[in-house]
Each structure stands twice: as C-alpha cells, then as structure tokens.
C-alpha cells in the first residue's frame, strides 16, 4: 500500500520513518532523490557504474541514518554519500586525478594571453546568440556530452551540480567535501573547457574534447 506523500509532514518525520524501515518512507525518499543522485553519479563514474554506486550509497546512508546530525537537508546528505561512493570507485579503478592536479594553472587558457596579460589569441565571434541557437546542431550537443565525460570526476561533478542541477556553491562544497575557493576553480576550469569546445566546433565544425 502506498502512503500518500503528505504522510511525511516534515523532514524529521520522514527521517524517523526511514530509520524505522517504513516502506512508504523509502518510496518517498527514492522518488524524491533518486534522479538527482543518479545524475551526479553518472557525471563522476559514467553510465555503466552509476546505478551500482547509487544503490551502494542508499545502503550506506540507511545504515548511517541514525547518526545523521541533520546539519544539512536529507537530500544534500544523500548526495554527499553518492559523491563519496563515486570517489571511492574512481580511486579503486585508478582513474583518479588528484585535486591538486585539477587545480593547477590552465595552460590551454593561459597560452591565449601575452606576457602583459592581453589576448593574443582572441575569442572568436560565435554564430549563435543563445544556448538554443548553438544547440540546433546535434553534433555539438553530442560533442559537449563527450567532452564532459573526459573531465576529471570533481570538475565534471561540479559542472553537473551547478549548471545542470542548480545547486548553490555552498551545497556543492558540502556534497563534494571541497572548499569554496576550490569549487570556484573547478567550476571555472570546467566552464573554460566547455567554452573552448564550443569555440573549436564553431571554428572547424569538428569535435575536439582535449
């Protein structure tokens, strides 16, 4: 029997029901959070492993729930557990790039400026004034997705959480366990990669994900 969503009048009630292993509470929480959790996992470990990572995160979360201190929303806490599971998986597969490496200066961007800090390789003028206009090309859409998959896990996760899921910088710090200044750098690097990807596509009509 499915309990109506209104059965959980607030988050504390829901958490108590989850701790008591109420099936209706599980259904409510999964319905509310699964999509976001999968989207984040997908950005960090790819499509093949995302389901497994999220399922593992649910099990870990439900075991840890009695100790949840409720300093963040339940969903943010669940997302943090997904990020941790995904990081563990990336580490296990030796695909992890260190945070320090991800924060190093962006050589591809820096080379576009001369020693006085002026553009020497000017940004090209794009043909298209809105995201919709740019995305009329299916090739560009596929290229962007392919490029994002090549980003290091934390850059890809930051981009996913900020641009595609609308999380605030504060929440992203909490979910990824990274300082705000580092989140800002990760986001800037990732955005510049997208910028260069679109620029290259506009210039050559070809997809370059490097």
């Amino acid at each position, binding site marked *: 029997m499915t309990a109506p969503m209104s059965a959980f009048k607030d988050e504390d009630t829901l958490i108590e029901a989850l701790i008591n*292993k109420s*099936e209706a509470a*599980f*259904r409510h929480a*999964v*319905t509310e959070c*699964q*999509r*976001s959790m*999968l*989207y984040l996992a*997908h950005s960090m470990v790819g499509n093949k492993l995302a389901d497994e990572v999220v*399922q593992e995160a*649910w*099990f870990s979360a*439900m075991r840890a729930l009695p100790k949840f201190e409720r300093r963040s929303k339940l969903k943010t806490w669940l997302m943090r557990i997904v990020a941790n599971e995904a990081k563990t998986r990336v580490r296990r597969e030796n695909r992890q790039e260190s945070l320090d490496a991800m924060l190093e200066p962006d050589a591809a*961007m*820096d080379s576009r*400026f001369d020693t*006085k*800090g*002026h*553009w020497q390789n*000017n*940004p090209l*003028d*794009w043909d*298209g*004034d*809105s*995201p*919709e206009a*740019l*995305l009329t090309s299916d090739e*560009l*859409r596929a290229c*962007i*997705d392919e490029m*994002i998959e090549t980003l290091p896990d934390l850059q890809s996760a930051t*981009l*996913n959480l900020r*641009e*595609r899921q609308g999380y605030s*910088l504060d929440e992203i710090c909490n979910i990824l366990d990274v300082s705000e200044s580092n989140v*800002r750098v990760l*986001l*800037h690097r990732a*955005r*510049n990669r*997208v*910028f260069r990807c*679109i*620029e290259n596509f506009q210039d050559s009509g070809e997809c370059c994900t490097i």
Partner: protein
Amino acid sequence: MLTCKQVSDTASDLLEGPTTLSQDIRLRLHLMICIHCRRYLKQLRLSTGVVSKSGSAPAPSKEDIETLVSKLSDQDK
C-alpha cells in the same frame, strides 16, 4: 587597470553574481574598452547555458523505484 587575463581568471566568479564594488568598477572600465573580454564573458555565459540546456537526467521508472524500495526494505532482515 585590469588586464584581459585577470578578467578571464575571475570570469566564472563574475557569472556567480556581484563581487566587490571596487572589482565591479574596475571590470566595467575594462569592458568599456575591450571587445575581446566583452565577447569572452558573453560566450562563457552562453557556455554555461549550453551545459544546462544540453543535459537531462531521465526520471527513474516506477519499476526501478519499486526494485530499490524492496531491496532497502529487505536490508538487514
């Protein structure tokens, strides 16, 4: 006066909203005279729009939800 590289280095922060007043004034002065930075900022903003509009997370099916709910209910039984 800000250099173009300094504008580029802080561009992403600018997209997140207003920064300090002095930085805002220095940026505006730079953008008044630099078409390349105006173009870069505009296109960086467009890039973020492209990312947000190009992706979508499919909603999990009812069947997937029920499978997971039953696994969670069976846990530690």
